[in-house]
């Protein structure tokens, strides 16, 4: 590399790693809590570890262009494995660690996986179970040796690195040569789409696409090497790849891996990240926990909490955005900050947060306002696996809960005649792996990618997403039917966890509802309503009444929204089981598989539209350990009040 400008702006991830090791060798690059203590690796150490690992893989026969499966919770060594594969010109393929072995088979075969780095015994067992159906797979490496002592044909991570160090000594300069050979247009990672429809597709993203997205994001939010993030979202998800790998490499900040999935809350508090990313359900769960604990607090604390939260609702978001607020409000807010908001942020582990993002699904206005009003700079972004999770970002000070932000630097957004959102920019996928048909279908002649989302551009230039384009249908009367829009309104109530609306081609809208076990369970306990489990609780008359009130509030809102007023929910039922990815009802990213659910519960839909009052249903469920069982229940079908269409008014 003679060109000095190219030196200052490395164009592949391995080169970025080398640059950090040179510029800030002593700066912490990653942390992991092990045996109760946070362990730290500096950039210099990470570069050494990755080097040993890459050489180890090379010694074992891993070559340019091969795919490396990575399966496990967020662990520094798994992130290093991604970098090691990239250094050799290979392509890491992170996979969802909570999927059962049967689901591994498709991806392992599709990506022709021969090498896999996995976290622990659980994942080794699953991969070994898949092996008879995956002829290519021959090399398995594991991070955590516990319980694996007597396994044959699997190698420990430490052993792999030992082999690598020997190989490195025997072939000096070989590793650097491999990094030299890398080009920005090489595929840097393959991420599988969650597959809301059909089989998952492997999305091939290049170094340049992810680096451009990460640079854009870092500049936009002024991220530096001094920031820190908690890496706790599935590594196979594009969001984690952008935040914990691409931006980590570009900005050089510190990523922190929690001790285990169950300790994320504690670890969040201990680390106090400055930059945070979570899908709406996480924010929802945090808020529910806070509210449940406040309900159990003493009267004085509860009083103070509700008083200052009212103040925050009135002026908190304005003060955060630097908008005008009255002096009295400012004084009250400052006092609240000392007494309530500060301690609350601390409990949530958000004391140091500069920028927090949410994406992946619509976020409820109350939820969004809650976090902003207590001084957490929560914003929304919009993107998908095919666009490196980088299309729109909300700028500081221009926050709207119903929009997902302005087009990010370097990104063009336009709306097709059909209402579909089209995007173009450096962050687009190279192709779907081995699926030229799908690639051709998703990118039009002008190079615009079809997102599959229906949206509009609001008057201030922000993008507003309405629904998945293919889900938008029509009621029998001709009015537009956007199921997601209705479901999101329902899900904004803390008592409702999931909802599925039906109405395409029908006269009226009906819906399935899943109650939130934590929130409704606590509600029932406080009212001395005894229940034995989800199925029982869901059919309690009091619970049905509770949900009906929520549905009717949604109907009242819809009545004010012009063309959507005919989408009011006429009848609903509460499902006897929670929709679950293990039963294929949700994707691994927890999105409803609409078509599948409609088919599976056809009897229930018919009952909703036949005007029955009760319907018996039996369903086969899969437990986490792979066994199955039956759930049977008599479901009550409830009518909800609807409202006459009111004159349309603009939502605040």
């Amino acid at each position, binding site marked *: 590399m003679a060109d000095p400008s190219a030196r200052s702006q490395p164009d592949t991830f391995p080169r970025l790693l080398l640059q950090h090791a040179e510029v800030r060798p002593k700066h912490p690059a990653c942390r992991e809590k*092990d*045996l*109760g*203590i946070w362990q730290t690796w500096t950039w210099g150490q990470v570069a050494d570890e990755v080097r040993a690992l890459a050489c180890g893989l090379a010694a074992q026969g891993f070559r340019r262009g091969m795919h490396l499966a990575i399966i496990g919770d967020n662990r520094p060594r798994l992130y290093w494995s991604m970098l090691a594969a990239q250094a050799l010109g290979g392509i890491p393929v992170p996979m969802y660690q909570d999927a059962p072995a049967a689901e591994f088979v498709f991806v392992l075969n599709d990506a022709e996986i021969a090498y896999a780095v996995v976290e622990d015994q659980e994942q080794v067992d699953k991969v070994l179970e898949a092996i008879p159906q995956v002829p290519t797979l021959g090399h398995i490496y594991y991070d955590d040796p*516990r*319980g694996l*002592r007597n396994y044959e044909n699997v190698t420990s991570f430490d052993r792999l690195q030992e082999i690598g160090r020997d190989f490195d000594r025997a072939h000096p300069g070989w590793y650097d040569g491999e990094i030299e050979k890398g080009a920005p247009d090489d595929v840097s990672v393959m991420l599988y789409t969650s597959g809301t429809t059909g089989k998952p597709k492997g999305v091939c993203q290049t170094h340049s696409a992810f680096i451009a997205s990460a640079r854009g994001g870092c500049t936009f939010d002024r991220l530096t090497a001094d920031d820190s993030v908690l890496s706790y979202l599935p590594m196979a998800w594009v969001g984690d790849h952008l935040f914990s790998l691409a931006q980590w490499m570009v900005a050089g900040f510190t990523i922190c891996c929690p001790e285990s999935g169950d300790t994320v809350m*504690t670890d969040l508090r201990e680390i106090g990240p400055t930059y945070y990313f979570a899908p709406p359900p996480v924010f929802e769960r945090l808020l529910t926990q806070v509210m449940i604990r406040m309900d159990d607090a003493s009267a004085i604390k509860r009083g103070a909490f509700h008083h200052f939260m009212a103040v925050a609702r009135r002026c908190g978001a304005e003060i955060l955005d630097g908008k005008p607020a009255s002096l009295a409000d400012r004084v009250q807010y400052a006092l609240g900050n000392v007494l309530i908001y500060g301690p609350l942020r601390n409990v949530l582990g958000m004391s140091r947060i500069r920028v927090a993002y949410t994406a992946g699904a619509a976020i409820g206005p109350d939820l969004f306002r809650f976090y902003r009003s207590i001084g957490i700079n929560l914003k929304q972004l919009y993107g998908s696996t095919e666009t490196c999770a980088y299309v729109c970002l909300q700028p500081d000070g221009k926050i709207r809960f119903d929009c997902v932000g302005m087009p990010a630097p370097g990104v063009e957004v336009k709306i097709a005649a059909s209402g579909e959102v089209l995007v173009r920019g450096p962050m687009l996928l190279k192709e779907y792996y081995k699926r030229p048909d799908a690639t051709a279908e998703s990118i039009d002649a002008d190079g615009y990618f079809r997102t599959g989302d229906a949206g509009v551009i609001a008057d201030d230039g922000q993008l507003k997403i309405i629904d998945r384009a293919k889900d938008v249908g029509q009621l029998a009367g001709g009015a537009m039917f956007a199921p997601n829009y209705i479901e999101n309104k329902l899900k904004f109530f803390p008592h409702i966890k999931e909802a599925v609306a039906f109405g395409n081609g029908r006269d009226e809208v009906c819906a399935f509802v899943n109650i939130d076990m934590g929130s409704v369970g606590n509600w029932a306990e406080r009212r001395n309503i005894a229940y034995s489990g989800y199925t029982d609780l869901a059919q309690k008359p009091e619970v049905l009444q509770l949900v009906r009130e929520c549905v009717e509030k949604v109907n009242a809102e819809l009545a004010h929204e012009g063309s959507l007023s005919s989408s009011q929910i006429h009848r609903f039922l509460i499902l006897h089981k929670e929709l679950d990815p293990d039963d294929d009802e949700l994707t691994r990213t927890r999105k409803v598989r609409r078509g599948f659910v409609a088919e599976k519960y056809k009897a229930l839909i018919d009952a909703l539209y036949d005007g029955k009052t009760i319907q018996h249903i039996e369903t086969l469920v899969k437990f986490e350990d792979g066994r199955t069982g039956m759930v049977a229940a008599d479901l009550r079908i409830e009518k909800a009040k609807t409202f006459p269409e009111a004159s349309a008014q603009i939502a605040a």
Partner: protein
Amino acid sequence: MATGDRKIGDVLLKLDNISLSFGGVAALTDISFDVRAHEIRAIIGPNGAGKSSMLNVINGVYHPQQGTITFHGNVRREMNPHEAAAQGIARTFQNIALFKGMSVLDNIMTGRNLMMKASFLEQAIWVGRAQREELQHRRKVEEVIDFLEIQHIRKTPVGRLPYGLQKRVELARALAAEPSLLLLDEPMAGMNVEEKQDMCRFVLDVNEQFGTTIVLIEHDMGVVMDISDRVVVLDYGKKIGDGAPSEIRSNQAVIDAYLGVAH
């Protein structure tokens, strides 16, 4: 694919002709059996068969009127629980015996109590030896926490935990003592299927990873037959069977004791 190079060793604990009675009630009559190093030995039997009494004899809570106990080659008639613990015997109880108000971490730390050498004064001002020692013990405790996957409740008071987790904490405390012989009194009683599976896995892992010899009392026959190497069957204080699970399964005396016989 659990067991592999785990080798069952020589006799670690041998009980000869043990008889124990409380007044006129004979709890154990002339019982002999042995436990080999690194094995999982189950004691089963109907209610009141004398299983818990047997464990209490082994760790010195009860003193048998007759018979001898040979542990690590040392023959003894009786000793107190403190000595038993010092010799490397740890146990859990049928009814959980933890300090409810203390955190999980502190509870497990008590398992290290016997190994703390620093004086009361040194510990009170936490200098020198006391400090070094605590760090070292804490590390061991953290390893146990990691092993039993209870990191998320490290700082939770034990009284707030569900039953299944309390049982796991109790096992953790016993493990913290790094025992060579671990006595488990109904480790899976009152658990649901999932908790039982977890517990089985932990028992097997302890045995495999640390080579700990385990004597356990359990009512769930499925569990006993699955995880133990050898089984002793007691009924009315007498030994009515002893052998591998497959032998026990077909032993007529055992079947009669469990299902009853026609008179």
